[in-house]
């Protein structure tokens, strides 16, 4: 019995082992990989992705899916930049209001998404996909296709100032992850996400207002997308419709690679952290080892399959969709 228990405990850590294995592999090919400076680089590219993936983790835990992130990020990024610039252009002044403002916008978009899904009874895949189009369109309408630059050195210090070798952005993302962890493990809402993911009809029969819970999940996700948008803007100093690009597949891949099941009810934000790191380590590692670019898509595919294969507990899975 104890032996089985330790085996089960080991299982939980497999994604982490995969991550360590990848790091060792890339290091073996190019020792430069294993350096604080490179880890800081990976942290920079991971920070926005981590926020987005964390947001969608909550939705996936409920057994739904959210594909609206690219649109939400675009709108949040663009409006954040506009607000910041309109409010004096610096976080040291009234500009800081742009941060809560962006989070609010993320929450509103999440709420709209959730309400369309719940009230119109449209599967989340479709509702969020459509809303993603609307979001991209919205940001296009706002910017007319232009880019908005943010010069504020205080805001850009998220990228440029380092503490312990890592940029502020990485620490901020870590702090947000801890909040997400708290929401997931210690709040009623967080626990109820697991309940809905474990069996929505059962949860409803137990008296949960699953509709409201779903909407809450999408709102939480929206707020994290807004955080992702802010970090993405901090990384490049540019807010534009393209800011959201590529986040959809990358974030969901990260969530799954980390070991959270798409059918809901299992996994969590720490898994997502590991997943995001795995995906970004692969992305960085392929460049660092000098893999020809035409092979990169394929190798990424193979490595992702391997990672998911290793980190899923097949004994508990009879059927995979």
């Amino acid at each position, binding site marked *: 019995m104890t032996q089985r228990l330790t085996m089960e405990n080991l299982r939980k850590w497999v994604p982490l082992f995969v991550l360590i294995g990848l790091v060792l592999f890339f290091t073996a090919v190019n020792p430069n990989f294993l350096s604080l400076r490179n880890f800081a680089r990976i942290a920079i590219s991971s920070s926005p992705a981590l926020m987005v993936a964390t947001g969608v983790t909550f939705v996936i835990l409920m057994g739904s899916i959210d594909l609206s992130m690219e*649109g939400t990020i675009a709108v949040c990024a663009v409006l954040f930049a506009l607000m910041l610039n309109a409010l004096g252009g610096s976080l040291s002044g009234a500009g800081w209001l742009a941060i809560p403002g962006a989070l609010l916008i993320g929450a509103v978009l999440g709420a709209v998404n959730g309400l369309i899904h*719940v009230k119109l009874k449209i599967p989340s895949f479709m*509702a969020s996909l459509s809303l993603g189009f609307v979001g991209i369109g919205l940001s296009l309408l706002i910017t*007319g296709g232009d880019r908005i630059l943010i010069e504020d050195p205080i805001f850009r210090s998220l990228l440029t100032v380092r503490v312990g070798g890592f940029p502020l952005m990485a620490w901020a993302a870590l702090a947000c992850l801890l909040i997400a962890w708290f929401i997931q493990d210690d709040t009623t809402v967080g626990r109820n996400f697991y309940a809905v993911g474990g069996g929505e009809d059962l949860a409803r029969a137990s008296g949960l207002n699953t509709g409201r819970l779903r909407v809450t999940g999408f709102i939480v996700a929206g707020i994290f997308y807004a955080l992702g948008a802010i970090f993405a803007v901090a990384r490049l100093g540019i807010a534009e419709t393209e800011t959201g690009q590529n986040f959809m597949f990358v974030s969901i891949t990260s969530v*799954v690679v980390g070991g959270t099941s*798409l059918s809901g009810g299992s996994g969590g934000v720490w898994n997502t952290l590991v997943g995001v790191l795995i995906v970004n380590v692969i992305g960085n590692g392929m460049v660092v080892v000098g893999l020809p670019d035409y092979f990169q898509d*394929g190798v990424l*595919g193979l490595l992702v399959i391997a990672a998911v294969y290793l980190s899923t507990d097949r004994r508990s899975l009879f059927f995979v969709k």
Partner: protein
Amino acid sequence: MVGVTDIKFLSPENLLNLATDVVPLLIMAVGMTLVIYIGSIDLSSQSVANMATVLATVTLPVAGAASALVVMAAGLLFGAVSGIVTTRLKVPSFIATLAVGGIALSVAQYVSGQQALHMDAGQRNHAFGWMQGSTAGIPHELVLALVIVGVAWFIQNRMTAGRVLKAIGTGEPVAVASGIRVERYKILAFALSGMFAAIAGLMFSVKLSGGSPTLAEGFLLPAIVAVLVGGTPLTGGVGGVMNTLIGTMIVAVVRASMLYLNIPATGQQIFFGLVLIVAIATTIDRSKMRIVK
């Protein structure tokens, strides 16, 4: 709505054109339907189609019309790999097909030498010229597409394979406990989806007389949307290829209607998204979905 705004929109000729234009999309969506019908998804279709355009262009001078077979076999193979990865390695199809799509893309880039290739007009017409023609005003492409849809419909509704796919979509454990070799059929569904994607790529490449690793870019989301708007939910077991036929037409009409309604450039995405929400809200059959996830 669009028809009212401009009566020309509903002319038979116009509708026929509209239908012909979306033939490759339709074929890809039909393949996708089989996979969604079993409750999975295929995100590799677009990359497989990209690869198909490259392979078709590269093999045409050597193989002539037989290049179609090469392309279809390649699609079948990549689809089957997705199926095997999902069933045997238990990697969710969302990820498995995305990853296999990456591999297909790498193949396309490698084979094409990262360049756009074009077909020799003579060779193309010799091998596939018949595809581009039309009889009695009806384009052969459209006929071919309808035949393919018809075959898929027959498989789905009248053949054991189709019944098994439905059983997998509605209750996979039951299918297993009924002694059905579920894995084989799942692999079959993915393989067929890959093949349909390859056919879509092939037809597109013949239409455009060339191939490139990005030629079929932009197929994936419309294909998925067509399936879902048609009324085959991601949970599987409901809907089918006829729904997808309708769904594809909806996508085509929505796209064309932007032009007829003079939607300004910056508003097109918003319009598309909102119309999709309305379309799906009106088309889905909620009575067959116990839980909307």
